């Protein structure tokens, strides 16, 4: 039975003279390798040349500050619940008097850690966040030498006040439209499916 057109029937027949002396085959092989000298190379010289990314590329996370420079995150834990890879861990604390300029709400995240080795960059944390605090940006997560250093704490995640990161690049009109939906679209579809099954 022939499964593909490329399959070759194996036989134990005697090699012909041309096959025995190897030379025709060797010259054929060398011609093939030589022809590859002039082929187009798929290499992208990375730091100088960058591959074109998608507009909605999901890279390293950021915890946004609001316009006054206070942290938006209120440590509700929605992102940690939404995270399919269970990469997010946080600890809450109560805002003291005099810290209003640091934290927007009365509750804030004392620690907030994302394990970049576990994270699958699905962006569900961003969708889940009710305070628009966490975003995925177009930045690439750096390579590290140790596994421990892949766990990013607040020192790496929170936006620096003097070095704001633009997160609007990923917010294309389609994305914004999608986000307006009361309950996200995939939930809606799921709900419809459930309703159908009930009836």
């Amino acid at each position: 039975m022939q499964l593909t057109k490329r399959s070759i029937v194996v036989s134990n027949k005697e090699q012909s003279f041309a096959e025995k002396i190897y030379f025709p085959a060797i010259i054929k092989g060398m011609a093939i390798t030589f022809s590859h000298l002039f082929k187009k190379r798929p290499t992208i010289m990375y730091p100088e040349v960058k591959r074109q990314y998608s507009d909605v590329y999901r890279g390293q996370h950021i915890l946004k500050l609001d316009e006054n420079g206070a942290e938006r995150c209120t440590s509700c834990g929605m992102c940690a619940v939404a995270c399919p890879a269970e990469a997010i861990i946080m600890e809450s604390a109560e805002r003291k008097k005099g810290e209003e300029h640091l934290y927007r709400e009365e509750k804030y995240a004392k620690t907030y850690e994302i394990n970049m080795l576990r994270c699958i960059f699905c962006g569900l944390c961003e969708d889940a966040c009710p305070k628009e605090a966490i975003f995925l940006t177009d930045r690439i997560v750096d390579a590290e030498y140790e596994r421990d250093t892949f766990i990013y704490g607040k020192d790496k995640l929170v936006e620096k006040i003097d070095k704001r990161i633009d997160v609007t690049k990923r917010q294309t009109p389609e994305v914004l439209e999608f986000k307006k939906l009361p309950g996200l679209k995939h939930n809606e579809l799921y709900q419809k499916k459930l309703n159908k099954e009930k009836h």
Partner: protein
Amino acid sequence: MLEFIIYKSIICTIIFVVSLGIAAYSTWWERKFAGLLQDRWGPSRAGIWGLLQPLADGGKMLFKEEIIPNVSNKFLFVLAPGLFIVTAIMAGVLIPWGPSVKIGETLYALQVSDINVGVIFLLGVTSIGVYGIMIGGWASNNKYSLLGAIRASAQMISYELAMGIALIALIITAGGTLSFSEIVAAQDKGVANIVWQPLGFIIFFICALAETNRAPFDLAECETELVGGYHTEYSAFKLGLFLFAEYINMFVSSAVMAGFYFGGYNFPFAHELYQAMGLQEGSWLISLIGFGAYFTKTLIFISVFMWIRWTIPRFRYDQLMNLGWKSLLPLSLLNLLITVIVEYFRGNINL
């Protein structure tokens, strides 16, 4: 006498430095060429086109930790890479790099030593080279190293025979001289030896691949079966010397092939060109052009060595032995017979 010593030391230094430089840049070109053949770019980070890569590699080899296994024979273990590289460089003394230069009244040959039994010296030195591999493999006290060493020595012995007989045929064609410079000079008037020795050249070329332990005959190293073969236990600069010597060997055998079969520093219409340029015999410009011709041929052969390495898969050990003893040896004898008959009718042999 002083003049002679100065001249010889200058030539020695130049050839030593050039051999090492070519070996270093062969590693670069090997990687670059391999990359180009495989739709990659090869080294491109160290300097433009990765030209500083050999320096980076050398620096890495120098500063890495040197490990000598405590079960090894330390004296032989240290001796082996040195022996290997010394014999590799030694074979280079024979090569006549260009026509002689006339300075003052004396002619200076661009050759370290014109030994009158140069071909025999060449065969001798290249077979001493295998002792470096054998001693290195044995002194390591490692099964893989020993297997690599055994393979290397068996391979050398098998292919030396065919190579020697192919060279006998060449010597008959070249007019019965064993001196390297005379073999090259004999191709000055007529045509290159390749015209009379096509089969001999193919045999010599295959044997040269085997003698230099290059793919498809790199069974001594054979990283897929024997870890690293004879240099499994070697590290740091001693490993570097082994790898370096392989490239020097390749350089020398390329030069030998270019000289023996492709006319060395001679090229078609050389005399017409020199006459048109109005150059006298012994002019340094003739030497320079001749050297350029020889060097180009050598570099082409080095590239062909690499081209073969990145095309053909490695032979199995029994295939290697079959090829050596059952094909190349009878073929070289046949080639000798044909050569004798042809040369008799050309009138070069008198009975």
